[in-house]
């Protein structure tokens, strides 16, 4: 276990490797955390409402799942790049720059992970009996309260599953990230980019393998965590 305590970890890995792992965790965390409210909102809209353009929204959300990641990355560069319409506005208005920054890596990861997150949450919402929501309304709860006190607690396992799925996807995102923010060690070099780089230089196999090991470990941890949380929430609902 000493292997994984803080300082030993730092000794075990080179600074570049270490920064790639840390950056990937940071990027994935923010990508997941910031897209989660949108994920819940979009999933709720798709699951519970009929509106004009619903199919278009559904298609847009799922686009990153079907498009080649490189294409998604390039589109992000066109829109959110420093000369892109949205990118230029965000830089002037808030000083927020995406292109070739870690924030851009987070944006790319969020966009790529979004369809998975929305699917998991949408399934959970569709499993909630609308009759329960009606019952809550007859008891005096407005739409917002019905959502907060009935829908949300019941879909919590789905939200957790969606979040962890999105986190795992963000950890592994490569194509869109490298296209949008490149592969700058210490700045935009995430775990998969680092593995890719190590495999490009002779004798880098061992370092690549170390990172692969860490990636596998994180993936397993995420999986166990989601199983455990999901089961404990389900148990609480079933009342044992």
């Amino acid at each position, binding site marked *: 276990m000493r292997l994984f305590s803080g300082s030993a970890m730092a000794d075990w890995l080179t600074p570049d490797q270490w920064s790639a792992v840390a950056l990937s965790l940071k990027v994935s965390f923010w990508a997941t955390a910031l897209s989660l409210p949108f994920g819940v909102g979009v999933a709720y809209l798709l699951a519970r409402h009929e509106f004009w353009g619903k199919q278009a929204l559904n298609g847009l959300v799922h686009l990153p799942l079907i498009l080649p990641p490189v294409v998604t990355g390039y589109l992000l560069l066109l829109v959110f790049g420093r000369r892109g319409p949205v990118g230029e506005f965000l830089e002037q208005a808030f000083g927020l720059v995406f292109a070739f920054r870690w924030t851009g890596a987070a944006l790319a990861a969020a966009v790529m992970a979004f369809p998975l997150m929305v699917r998991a949450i949408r399934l959970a919402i569709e499993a909630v009996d609308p009759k329960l929501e009606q019952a809550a309304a*007859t*008891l*005096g709860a*407005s739409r917002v309260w019905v959502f907060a006190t009935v829908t949300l*607690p019941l879909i919590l396992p789905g939200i957790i599953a969606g979040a962890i799925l999105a986190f795992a996807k963000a950890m592994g995102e490569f194509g869109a990230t490298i296209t949008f923010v490149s592969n700058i060690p210490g700045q935009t070099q995430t775990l998969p980019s680092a593995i890719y780089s190590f495999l490009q230089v002779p004798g880098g196999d061992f370092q690549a393998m170390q990172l692969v090991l860490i990636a596998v470990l994180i993936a397993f941890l995420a999986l166990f965590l989601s199983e455990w949380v999901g089961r404990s929430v389900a148990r*609480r609902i079933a*009342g044992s």
Partner: protein
Amino acid sequence: MSLSVRFTHCFRDFSLDVAFEAPPGVTALFGRSGSGKTSVVNAVAGLLKPSTGRVQLDETVLFDSNCRLSVPVHRRRLGYVFQEGRLFPHLSVRQNLLYGRWFARDGSGVGFDHVVEMLGVGDLLARQPARLSGGEKQRVAIGRALLANPRLLLMDEPLASLDEERKAEILPYLERLREETDIPILYVSHSMAEVARLATTLVLMEKGRVVRAGPAADMLSDPENVPALGVRSAGASLHATVAAQEEDGLTRLEASAGPLFLPRVEAPVGTRLSIRILAHDVILSRSRPEGLSALNVLPATVTAVRLGDGPGAIIQLKAGDDLLLARITRRSALALALEPGADCFAVLKTVAVAQSNVGGLG
């Protein structure tokens, strides 16, 4: 409080056109499944927006298509007890009960302890709904609706998903509800036995229309309503007071027309009861019968006769202050010359009265 409902609504293959008034007490919407009863309740609750019409509770207009007014469901302050309970699975029984209280604007209304005591759910408070029996779930659902401090209670077949035993367990609670609160209740059912026990007003529905409506006692004892109510379940209710618990397992009651013996009714002496007597359980005789096994012989006068299309006839009788229905053959009706005004004796087998047809009375 009284509720006034008048609306039309078109579904794909079915249209509703109803109008009725629900005075205080229990108003039962009775009809076959598919006659539109649930849609009426949903329209009152706001879960269904009718095409045209108006729903009004006292001075408060809940829905009016002319003014394009529809109070949102959560602002109507009606308690709705659904057929399947619909308890929140992630909340404990206590939290379920208190859910509506959260949103009730004023703290007045029925007290938590009173409702818990009245419905006998005190031992269940810490449990999750998944661990309740069907009957317990419905009692909690009723309590939850009551504690939301409603101006009107809507009950959509609250007993339909339960077996006979559970029904018998809940019916007394509903009777207590009728007697102990002054909240009007709109009660949907396709069970004549439930309606006869609970209803003070009866609204008969058929194919999306209101066929007849009026005070339940009058409606149930009117021979003209028998075809709509169902010949097999036709019957009127007799009011009686428990006079004595006899040693041989019988209970002696005092009705206005004379003494009445029933299989043991677990109620203290002096209790007022309403006993539903099915029309096909009544035998008529022009002279006082002798040497008969039936214990109950009540003197009565024929008040109305309805000859059916088939071999049957329905005779309405006045026995003391109560109205009775008897279903006999046309042949007997003619042979005995049973016409309005004729005196006769209504014979009733003691054991024919089912326990479930004996209800409390306030």
